[in-house]
């Protein structure tokens, strides 16, 4: 997360910080369970007042965006990020579902459906191997 503050602006500094962190949470740049930099770290990086950073975190906690766990840090509230693999499995499932449904409608048994899947998989593997040989 890349925080930036315009100190000379008429917009309160804690509000500037809040908005950026909220935006990062809304856009998925930071996700549930993720730890945010400590008050001291942000204050040091931006060479700004630590009380103002603390105020931003306090207000974000009140707004339900972060959770301040005393002694361990500040964490984003919300659903945790899905792993890439999980996302992939879900997408592939979504794509396969209509094909399986169609197979069932055509009267294929479970074993026949599996065989269709295996055949397609090995055909893709063969094609890939042939493509490599030709290169």
């Amino acid at each position, binding site marked *: 997360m890349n925080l930036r503050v315009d100190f000379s*602006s*008429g917009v309160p500094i804690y509000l500037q910080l809040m908005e950026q962190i909220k935006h990062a949470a809304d856009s998925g740049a930071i996700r549930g369970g993720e730890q945010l930099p400590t008050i001291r770290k942000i204050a040091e990086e931006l060479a700004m007042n630590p009380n103002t950073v603390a105020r931003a975190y306090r207000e974000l906690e009140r707004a339900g965006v972060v959770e301040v766990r005393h002694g361990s840090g500040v964490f984003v509230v919300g659903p945790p990020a899905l792993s890439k693999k999980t996302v992939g499995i879900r997408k592939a499932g979504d794509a396969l579902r209509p094909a399986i449904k169609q197979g069932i409608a055509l009267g294929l048994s479970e074993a026949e459906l599996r065989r269709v899947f295996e055949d397609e998989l090995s055909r893709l593997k063969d094609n890939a191997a042939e493509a490599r040989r030709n290169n």
Partner: protein
Amino acid sequence: MNEIVLSTSNLAKSFDGKPALRRLNLEVPRGSICGFLGRNGAGKTTTLKLLSGMMRPDSGEIRMFGDAVKSEAQSIAARRRIAFVSEDKDLYSFMTVDQTIRFTRAFFPAWRLDLEEKYLDLFELPRKKAVPKLSKGMRTQLMLLLAMARGADLPMMDEPTSGLDPAMTEDILRILGDLAATDGTTIFFSSHQLAEVEQICDRVCLIDRGQVVIDGVLDDLKAEYRRILLVFDGEPPRELADLPGIDHLRRHGRTVSLLVHTDVEAALDRAQELGASSVEVRPVTLKELFLDHVRGE
């Protein structure tokens, strides 16, 4: 709100019958960094000298760490917890950097050797060099080192970054922030640089002609104050001056600029009733607050 570590009530001081401070009231809560602002001659240095015990007020009261500072004994007790970094940087002219540090260290049982080392390294101060041969910036750094290593609860500084280049200034600001984050050290410093005050301070205290005109949390001031720009088709009505919550009013022909705090909505409604043909509301920067409050009405 945090415990108030420094406050004054009706502090007054005159020189040769001319008042430098009149009824000065300010409050600094623990752990805050308070920027002390004002034009030259507004009373900043006089205030700092009174607070640091270098001068006595004609009247009024100073409270530090919860106690009134009245007697000599109370004054000495309070001074032990403050450190004063002055603009003239009066260090001992016959000593080297190392000697100055050793000499000062002897007076303070709570001396922080770790901080001494840390800042010697950070500032890259030449230990063997005589103090008068140091640059202005280096003398400031040495003063800061002495103030911080003695473990003062309340460093008070008169223009701590004057004579420093922008990179060094940034380092000093970072150190001030770090101090405030660490042990709840409270920092009170005067400055001419609005940019550094709005960067590092959570509180500002603005004085003009010996009195406090603004004292508060900087972000709250930004949230409370608004600039209202009004345009009228003809001569702006006189009643504008009676609008609620107005701090400052300026006319430029058919245009009027208002600095308003508290009840901005009410002021807007009233301005519309008075026939403004155009109304614009803007946030207010520290610079505008400063200029509007220290310029003649």
